[in-house]
């Protein structure tokens, strides 16, 4: 796999080849491998929060159940569908850039960023209702002031602690994803990528898929507690 580009000084190198890589295939593989390591690290970053969630759900099962009833599951479902669609469009973006169709790639990237914004808007709305209903973690938990129906036990504050930590961290990652994809979109608009060089699109796509992957696990764990 490794071509010997050392003969007669350097052959006219591909435009984006770094001097330390011997050929662009190895550089592309290095970039993807580096990204996968970064995704492995992101999984561990969320693992501590999943561990805290599992720890407290294990101890207060029915408090978690009663607390999660107050979450808007239809919004959760819509957000999941929205993120899955954005995941599709980003995969198509990579697919098109591989065939060199830059125009279609830009369209797909725009749709992905749009879906991301929709997700953030929906999630913001959810937070607003929770702020309004007083379903906030720890010290700020005062549901009885606004909620009718049976009083929530004290421990359901733990549910909202885990809920807010998980979803706020996930939303931050959505924001970072939007930043990354818009940079990739800007470069693509300026024609930086071609069929031979599209590493950034692939890496940006991988990051966005991770954000979607985490939401796939968050949705059943937070919204569909039984």
């Amino acid at each position, binding site marked *: 796999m*490794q071509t010997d580009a*050392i003969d007669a000084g350097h052959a006219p190198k591909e435009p984006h080849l*770094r*001097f*330390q*890589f*011997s050929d662009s295939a*190895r550089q592309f*593989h*290095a970039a993807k*491998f*580096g990204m996968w*390591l*970064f995704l*492995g*690290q*992101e999984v*561990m*970053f*969320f*693992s*501590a*929060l999943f*561990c*805290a969630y599992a*720890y*407290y759900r294990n*101890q*207060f099962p029915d408090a978690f159940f009663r607390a999660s009833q107050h979450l808007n599951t239809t919004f959760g479902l819509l957000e999941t569908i929205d993120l899955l669609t954005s995941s599709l469009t980003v995969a198509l973006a990579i697919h098109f850039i591989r065939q060199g169709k830059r125009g279609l790639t830009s369209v797909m990237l725009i749709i992905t960023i749009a879906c991301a914004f929709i997700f953030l808007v929906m999630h913001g709305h959810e937070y607003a209702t929770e702020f309004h209903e007083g379903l906030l*973690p*720890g*010290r700020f938990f005062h549901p009885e002031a606004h909620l009718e129906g049976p009083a929530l036990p*004290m*421990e359901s*504050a*733990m549910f909202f*602690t*885990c809920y*807010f*930590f998980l979803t706020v*961290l996930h939303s931050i990652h959505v924001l970072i994803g939007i930043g990354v994809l818009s940079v990739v979109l800007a470069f693509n608009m300026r024609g930086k990528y071609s069929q031979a060089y599209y590493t950034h699109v692939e890496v940006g796509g991988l990051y966005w898929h991770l954000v979607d992957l985490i939401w796939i696990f968050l949705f059943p764990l937070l919204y569909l507690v039984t």
Partner: protein
Amino acid sequence: MSLAVVPEGSPLQAAHEEPDYIRAKSGVLSWVLTLDHKRIALLYLGTVTVTFFLGGIFALALRTELLVPEHGIMDAMTYNRMFTLHGVTMVFFFMIPAIPGVFGNFFIPLMIGAHDVAFPRLNLTSYYLYLFAVCLGLWGMIHGGTDTGWTFYTPYSTTTTTAVLPILAAAFVNGFSSILTGVNFIVTIHTLRAEGMHWMRLPLFVWGMYGTSVIQVLATPVIGITLALAGVEHFLGTGIFDPARGGDPILFQHLFWFYSHPAVYIMVLPAFSVASELIGAFTRKPLVGYKMIALSTFGIAFVGFLAWGHHLFTSGQSVVDAGVFGFLSMLIGIFTSIKVFNWVGSMYKAAIHMTTPFLYALGFLFLTVFGGMTGVALATISLDVHWQDTYFVVAHFHFIMAGAVVLMFLGGLHYWFPKMFGKTYPEGWGMIAATLVILGFIGTFTPQFFLGNEGMPRRYYSYPAHFQWLHVTSTIFAYILFMGLLLTLIYLVVALINGPRASNNPWGAPQYEWDTPSPPPEHNFSATPVINRDPYEYVGQEIIENAN
């Protein structure tokens, strides 16, 4: 004393006219914005030396205070802040970044025949993240630092009135720097190996760095999120670790030690890998059990993730979990013993050259054996009940961390000094300083084993009088240790300024990094080298049958 014969047609010829990486460019900007892995290594070396001596001064202040049972030179609160800052500075700002940052950055590309690391810009970013973390830490120190100990146990760390947030932020940012270094090294080792450099020809230093990077990438994010949770809990009172709201402080301990136990292997694996290099070079023979040492690196890396519970034996952890963690902790001991036996085995029928780095390696061997044994004793659950949180634990991890890691940092610094700076250090002074440092370590921390047995708890500002004579001996040797380290700094700086010029391979060592001129040119090799021999194989020098 240059023993190595320069094989003809090697990349060395072409590289001779190129200026070396120090003189290749000049001006502050060329250093501050450098992408050359060797210059970044020197930036790390500078910062790491500062933080090491800063941590050392905190340690000396602690030891001086402990000379007398009651009020010595500071009050209780200052003492508590002092030992926290000693812990945080040493662990986060020296131990974790030192060997990977300085020697890993400088020598991995040289050892695998690469021009530079895989992502040079990422390399510079992780240095600046580390520098930013050190500045955050200094800013926290100026604001009085915190008094929670480097473990930040809740609910104390979330209810303390001292400035704990800047220190938490410093550790958080430092985590990212070490993750990005880990990613960079793993990708470099995977994709940038030169032709002929297959896995079984990797020098053991590169194996050690690979194992360390795996732990760095997979364990560090957990401390990032845990410290963030503690910070948000301290600031907003979300109740995740707060017992009054159903939270559980023991969960914080689980999450903290899930990182911190592999973190001690992030610190010690690089030291083991430098030791393999030193012993490989100065016994003038290929290392015994090359494969076993390489594989035991991964043994330590992965089993290290399973044993974090032995820090919680007395914290109210369940008996079942204590048993499981106790058993898994025992498995780590065997990988270290493989390494130690192979190192000592390598000295059999060798031709040992007595130099300062090898003296450090001998000191390292003694401290690792003794520290490792006390580690296994601590992992025996019923003994740990007595020893937990006493000076026995302090002595154990200082034997390993202060002993093994610092000795190997100094050993590596002396061994690679000619290659990094092109100057030779004074051998005589080196020997004196090394003996002072090794005796200082042993003298400072052996009394603390007996203190721990007698039941002296750690982090105690004042103590009952019957512990005093052990504290006094420990403090005296602490000063000797500090003198040794100061002497090392002095003669190394003097050698840096006007030391005699070093040849390309002053030790006649077989490893690949000695094939380049010292200090090496900016792109290491003019053309990608072809590796055709094992790292510890002596080529071009005749081997006398009867070694002695």
